[in-house]
């Protein structure tokens, strides 16, 4: 129960009917750490991410953010408490502009309220200007400033993933959950991703929980790696150790065991 931990996952278990998706998973994340969450397909990573961000409720166990319980709360509340996320399947508002996509994520934290916005008060307009500036700053990290007023769907998949990162980062999150950000990215973009994740920690002090399949990214940025297999935690160590751990190797290669996709 170290007060150093920002995120504490305590005994999370999740059933879906008869299926046990997560079985007593516990780990912590310290402020400023970049922790990887890896495991073969079906190991429960997505389920855990959805529990951490409020899309699912755990069957038992709890998650604490800086000592406050977040598990069981609705997703909008958890987001407002400082947990940002990207989605495995890439989720943006495709018809809305990049600027609007980012602004919407920042909206709840603006000091001027909705009423001020409707009445077009100066305080609201000042906030809107600041929001746009922040969005530009974020997009500049990825070199995407020129797309700011384009509809999100007009960008390539790689660029859209970057916008998702920009969206999360713009909210100055305490914890940023990245759900397979490297999926579908070309190698130069993967390099870019590694660079950006490192910058997030170095420049913005963001704590990151990274779910990833692409081992290159995990090894390059993660301080520590938590490995899941069939819903259980089987390792919790720096990447070099974890990837050579025989249990982890066994889980991935599955000597003699069938793996489902």
């Amino acid at each position, binding site marked *: 129960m170290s007060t150093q931990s920002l995120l504490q996952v305590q005994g999370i278990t999740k059933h879906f009917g008869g299926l046990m998706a997560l079985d007593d998973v516990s780990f912590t994340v310290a402020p400023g750490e970049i922790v990887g969450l890896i495991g073969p397909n079906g190991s429960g990573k997505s389920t855990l991410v959805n529990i951490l961000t409020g899309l699912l409720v755990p069957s038992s166990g709890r998650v604490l953010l800086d000592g406050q319980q977040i598990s069981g709360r609705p997703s*909008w509340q958890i987001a407002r408490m400082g947990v940002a996320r990207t989605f495995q399947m890439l989720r943006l508002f495709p018809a809305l502009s990049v600027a609007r996509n980012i602004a919407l994520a920042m909206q709840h934290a603006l000091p001027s309220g909705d009423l001020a*916005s409707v009445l077009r008060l100066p305080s609201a307009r000042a906030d809107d200007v600041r929001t746009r500036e922040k969005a530009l700053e974020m997009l500049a990290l990825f070199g995407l400033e020129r797309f700011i007023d384009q509809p999100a769907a007009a960008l390539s998949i790689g660029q859209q993933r970057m916008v998702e990162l920009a969206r999360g980062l713009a909210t100055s999150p305490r914890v940023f959950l990245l759900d397979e950000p490297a999926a579908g990215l070309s190698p130069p973009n993967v390099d870019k991703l590694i660079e950006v994740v490192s910058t997030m920690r170095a420049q913005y002090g963001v704590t990151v929980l990274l779910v990833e399949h692409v081992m290159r990214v995990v090894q390059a940025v993660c301080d520590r790696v938590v490995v899941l297999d069939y819903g259980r935690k089987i390792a919790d160590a720096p990447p070099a150790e974890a990837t050579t751990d025989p249990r982890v190797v066994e889980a991935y290669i599955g000597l003699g065991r069938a793996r489902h996709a």
Partner: protein
Amino acid sequence: MRKPVSILLLCLLLLLLPVLGSGGYLLNIIVMIFIFVILAVSLDLVMGWAGQISFAHAAFFGIGAYTTAIMERDLGTGFWVNLPSGMVVAGLFGLALGLPALRLRGHFLAIVSIAFQTIVYLALSQWTSFTGGQYGLSVEPVPGFQRVGQFYYLALALAALTVVLAWALTHSRVGAAWQAIRDDEVLARAIGLHTTSSKLLAFVIAAALAGGAGVLVAHHIRGVTPDDFTILVSASIVAMVIVGGQGTLWGPLLGAVVLTALPELLGPLASFKLVIFGALMIFMIIAMPEGVLGAWVHRRRR
């Protein structure tokens, strides 16, 4: 730059119509158009912006209308007190329906709204001691606006205010949140938007505006009867929003004009008019599912 000029000319025409000496028949139709503009524009906030379905709009329309009729009868108050009152009462009913109903999606939300609409209609037509039953109640004209040429400006003003309000809402953070909910509610929640209260806001504002339209219509036709506020009227308003083009500002406006004016132009007999109205609804939905505005924009892009 032709668009703003033609709009200006249209506004000028609208302002001068009564003065130009047009007959009462035409002015009456246009007053009804103004009333349905309020109804269609307000419903579009719920449907085209917040992305919900509601077949209960005529119920709020009726609640507003009956509020003014009953207040006039029992409290002796007039239009200027009853207008905000009608809006508040309708808004409260909107809250009462919205709180449980907005948890449901798609088909189910539609059915709950239909059930609510029907309950209101049945209450209005059967609670005879309070609402006058099938015969309804009579309503006094508004002093200073007794002639249709005068009432015209009252209706025009309220319709214009509604459009301005809708514009202000949809072009603010409130409207941005609605668009987000409409496009992907799960994502909207994941980025911190309180989607339930946002949807509820659309619902309540729309209900209040419909109530206001109800107060207006009550003083226009000098009475209220349950058959003016049936599920068919609700469906017509939905049709106006869809036929005109959801989620745009001019769409519902256009839809209100088309579906209110066209039947008048094409059929003299009451029943004949309605047969045409029904056929029109079918035809327009099949031919233009994205609405008149949507189809027009589509054709311009090519």
